[in-house]
């Protein structure tokens, strides 16, 4: 446990040192405040619209941003150590491969969690203080749910980046594959699902289809943050499948947790087989 924390601590202090943490937090806070005030501009007014609308807009943006940040943060975790020449040395220390990987995860995970908490937390507090007659309780719950799910989504993509990082031998390859992961989950997956939906003209097993949403962590994240506020009426595209999903919010949370636990376990298994 001590070794895990030593590794995590170095990652975390690296994130402070190279200003990653503060930069991510600033981006989050700026985005959140921007969306809170100008999110309703399309309907012809400036000012805070409503908590559900703000969270929904933030989540839509988060889907693009969070996976990208997480992948960038973590893609070189192992392959970077190897190219830097320190992996071999680390492995001669009383440190198992699992401890190294979980330590990295703890460090990167904490970096992302802190940045999310600080960025969106500050934005949430600013909204609560600046907007008149806002339901602070509802805002706090929505914000906390948003921060927690954003963190979990980020962890999922950190774990996916590790799967790449423990497998490849060169950093540029890892970066390319990380981008491919982003492209697949954020852009391609929903299109594929929509394609299946349309092409099958409803022939496709209607009980199975909603479950396919759980194969994409970004869809789970979107469901958690958007469906929570609506009765399904304002859902569009593949998300409308979500209202057919027979799992409640607890199931969605569990799915999001599994989305970092399973890739992380996979990365660990692959790392143990890696030749050093």
């Amino acid at each position, binding site marked *: 446990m001590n070794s895990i924390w030593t590794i995590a601590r170095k990652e975390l202090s690296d994130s402070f040192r190279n200003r990653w943490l503060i930069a991510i937090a600033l981006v989050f806070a700026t985005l959140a405040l921007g969306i809170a005030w100008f999110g309703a501009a399309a309907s012809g007014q400036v000012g805070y619209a409503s908590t559900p609308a703000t969270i929904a807009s933030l989540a839509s943006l988060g889907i693009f941003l969070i996976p990208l940040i997480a992948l960038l943060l973590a893609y070189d975790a192992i392959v970077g150590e190897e190219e830097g*020449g320190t992996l071999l*040395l*680390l492995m001669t220390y*009383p*440190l198992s491969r699992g401890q190294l990987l979980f330590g990295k995860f703890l460090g990167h995970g904490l970096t992302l969690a802190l940045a999310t908490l600080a960025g969106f937390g500050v934005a949430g507090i600013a909204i609560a203080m600046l907007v008149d007659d806002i339901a602070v309780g509802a805002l706090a719950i929505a914000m906390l749910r948003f921060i927690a799910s954003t963190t979990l989504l980020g962890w999922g993509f950190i774990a996916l980046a590790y799967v790449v990082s423990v497998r490849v031998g060169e950093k540029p390859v890892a970066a390319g594959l990380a981008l491919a992961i982003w492209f697949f989950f954020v852009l391609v997956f929903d299109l594929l699902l929509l394609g299946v939906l349309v092409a099958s003209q409803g022939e496709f097993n209607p009980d199975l289809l909603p479950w396919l949403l759980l194969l994409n962590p970004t869809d789970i994240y979107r469901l958690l943050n958007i469906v929570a506020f609506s009765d399904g009426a304002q859902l569009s595209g593949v998300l409308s499948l979500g209202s057919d999903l027979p799992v409640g919010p607890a199931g969605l949370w569990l799915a999001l947790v599994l989305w970092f636990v399973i890739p992380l376990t996979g990365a660990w298994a692959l790392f143990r087989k890696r030749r050093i």
Partner: protein
Amino acid sequence: MSCFHLENVSYRYDKALVLNGVDLRLEPGEILGLFGHNGAGKTTSIKLILGLMRPTGGRVSVLDGEAGDPGVSQHIGYLPENVMFYPQLTGREILAHFARLKGASLRQVPELLGQVGLDDAMDARVKTYSKGMRQRLGLAQALLGKPRLLMLDEPTVGLDPVATADLYRLLRKLRDKGTGIVLCSHVLPGVEPYIDRAAILTDGSLKAVGDLGALRRQAHMPVTLSLEPENSVEALEAAVNSAQATEGLMVHHDNGRLHVDVQPSGKMALVKALMASGEVRDLGIYQPTLEDVYVHFIGSGGLAHRGGAQ
């Protein structure tokens, strides 16, 4: 307790046999030189002892335990060839990080940095370090936690002569306190005075192991006598021939001196005969060096057939 013990160890990488039936052990308080051409299996042997890989055949025991076991790794210091560190951290931060990982006292950090001569640079980022400074930091790292087994791969690369001498003095001190040390180097004349035993690897097998005297005997390498004539070279050569030493005597002239290669067993008889002849003004005796012995065992094929990757 031995520092490590390889028993009939083999290792296959894909299909290629990288190590083939190697038997080697190191006792505490001993410096072992591990030599071989590129791809001979030095790095593989070291990785097996460090527990980075498992042998395909045979047994590896390290400090009476299993190679790679955390309780064992804690007592091993390792300096890899071309050691690299996190460029954005300072020397002190890096050493503290590794000390925590090894469970060594943080008090050791400034102590060791002083010992390797990095007092003034410990708070500078490693990316500003020269090769020699990185090497010193690597050494400090290897010495964390008072290791009982120290493995150094080309430790003197980038070090100036004074620092090199300092390093060897330090290694002697550690050896006298009971640390077992493995030295890998291609600078054979540099390590020759400091090693207790040498092990020579070629193509994955152990060609020879022992102290320098034993290796010389095993190699049957001649001793060279360098003779300065009292009267004339011809008279001296006649005296050498009439001494009737053992067969395989090689004689050649060089700058008015006579060089005679003689088997060690016949050396004293020849020297006595020459002394009696009165034809010798001065006499030098040259034992084969570690480098000579090494070349003998490796063969002098040189670059032509020794291109294998490590």
